[in-house]
């Protein structure tokens, strides 16, 4: 009977394609939109995940997310270093400073100052030069996207692409000279400003003179030290906030989840995809059953049980569901792949397959259920009606 069910389904090519396309659409929207959403949300904490070495981040207790800088006094660094279980603790400066470019225009940059001696917290990937080059006088490392775009020199052709900033070029940060000694690749963040790495002491000299300039203390725990215990100890001793890397990432992530319209906007897109897909596919599927009702009646009169008819409809639903889902997910993957070099945020973890799979299944179950109810209630005596 399976073979009959499939032939009945595909008998009307137009309807069959309509159902599959509806499901493809739903599956595409329910996969692609969350993928972009996850990509965007992961940008909220990508600065933290880029800084690989430290186990624990120490900061002012009022900090709500990674870009919410509330500076500390330098003395806090020494207090943290004195806590037992701390292998090492390094300072980090993070702040927005104005850079003056060669053509005289200004560009706000995200300046990161690294401990002078160890340079811990540097960029994850160096494309040109090394992190150690920061030791050279006035040395800064800029990220490739910033170098190519916002920090680049204007194109000689009007409207053309800017000429990228190169190693050896110079710029001014708050009237201080800075020389590019390296180009790095960093993971994109929400902030579109160029990222400029330098040493902690140089960053302090660039920054406007303030009493407090220390943004974070980066801590490595002693081997075997329990992180939870150590963060509690740091908090108790210093009154500062201390988070493991994962905790700080989720703090940041949660901040964006609860304080921005991003989740709602994407949630609405996904819901719309679900509803539109369900409407198109569900309705066409149901219509196709209605059109085949007489055929189901004939099968029923000839002795086919409701149970078998139910299985036939389920099989039809599973088939269109699988095809639509596969196409939707495949198109999403293709979309993500073709956008891999663009600034588009895109993250496609396997859990997303379950999410959209559940969505498509729901649509199919809903469509099949309507049809099944109709067919089960069908009186076989209709076969003799004209």
């Amino acid at each position, binding site marked *: 009977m399976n*073979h009959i069910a499939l*032939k009945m389904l595909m008998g*009307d090519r137009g309807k069959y394609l309509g159902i599959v396309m509806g499901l493809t659409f739903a599956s595409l929207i329910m996969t692609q939109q969350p993928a972009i959403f996850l990509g965007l949300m992961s940008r909220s904490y990508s600065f933290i995940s880029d800084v690989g070495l430290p186990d624990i981040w120490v900061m002012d207790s009022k900090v709500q997310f990674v870009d919410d800088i509330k500076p500390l006094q330098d003395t806090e660094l020494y207090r943290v270093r004195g806590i037992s279980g701390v292998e090492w603790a390094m300072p980090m400066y993070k702040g927005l400073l104005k850079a003056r470019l060669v053509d005289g225009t200004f560009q706000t940059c995200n300046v990161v100052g690294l401990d002078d001696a160890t340079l811990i917290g540097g960029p994850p990937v160096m494309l040109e030069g090394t992190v150690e080059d920061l030791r050279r006088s006035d040395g800064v490392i800029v990220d490739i996207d910033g170098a190519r775009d916002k920090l680049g020199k204007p194109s000689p052709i009007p409207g053309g692409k800017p000429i990228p900033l190169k190693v050896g070029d110079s710029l001014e940060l708050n009237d201080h000279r800075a020389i590019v000694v390296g180009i790095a690749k960093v993971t994109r963040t929400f902030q579109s400003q160029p990222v400029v790495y330098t040493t902690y002491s140089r960053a302090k000299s660039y920054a406007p003179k303030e009493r407090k300039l220390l943004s974070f203390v980066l801590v490595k725990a002693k081997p075997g030290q329990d992180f939870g215990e150590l963060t509690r100890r740091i908090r108790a001793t210093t009154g500062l906030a201390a988070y493991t890397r994962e905790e700080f990432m989720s703090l940041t992530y949660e901040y964006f989840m609860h304080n921005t319209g991003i989740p709602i906007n994407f949630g609405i897109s996904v819901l719309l995809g679900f509803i539109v897909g369900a409407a198109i596919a569900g309705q066409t599927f149901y219509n196709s059953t209605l059109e085949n009702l007489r*055929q189901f009646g004939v099968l029923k009169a*000839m*002795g086919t049980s409701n149970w078998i008819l139910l299985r036939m409809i389920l099989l039809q639903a599973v088939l269109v569901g699988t095809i639509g889902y596969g196409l939707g997910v495949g198109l999403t993957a293709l979309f993500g792949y073709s956008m891999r070099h663009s600034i588009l945020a895109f993250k496609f973890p396997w859990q997303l397959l379950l999410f959209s799979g559940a969505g498509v299944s729901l649509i199919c179950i809903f469509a099949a259920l309507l049809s099944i109810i109709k067919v089960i209630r069908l*009186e076989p005596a209709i076969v003799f009606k004209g």
Partner: protein
Amino acid sequence: MNSPSLAVRCQNVIKTYDTGDQKVTALNSVNLEIATGELMMLVGPSGCGKTTLISVIAGILDQDSGHCEVLGEDLLSMSNQHKLNFRARNIGFVFQAFNLLPSLNAAENVSIPLIINGIKRAEAERKAISVLEQVGLGARVKALSSELSGGQQQRVAIARALVHSPRLIVCDEPTSSLDHETGHNVMTLLKDVALYKDRTLVIVTHDARIFDFADRIAEMDDGHIVKVKGTKG
């Protein structure tokens, strides 16, 4: 148990349709006996209850009261599953509108009753093709119903009604959609191929041109059998 020589025995069968605002008594105490191996025609004016009666006889509609024994079994007292199996094994259907599945080819259509009876697809189609040959469609086994004439479609439908060797075949206006000659050929086929000593045919018709094919004719009016007459002797 009734005598094996009776295929159908209806006693005081009453069926009323309730359409909400009004009740229509389609069968008003029908009494009818159909012998095994005979071709019984059911005739009468439109709306007199012919279709309702063969629906009850074929076990696709339950009467409100009265007895109906078909092939020795009381349909009303059967469980649903039992009734399904009974229909699958014992009843063949032929309709005025053919009711072939349009996305299946002739052989696949004919194999449906066998598949419902649990026979494997390949074997069912082999059997279906041999029956299609019997009805003169051996060359069109792969044709879809849209590629066949009305007479050919009805022959496929007859093959489908025969393929599982049912003991009772019910036909509702089998020739009404066909021209005279084609209808005649279809009746010849039904009589020659479908009917034999163990198989009974009940044919509803108002097509007077085919009355000659009947062994007996039951005339209905207003939910009753008013007269049963033999055409022979």
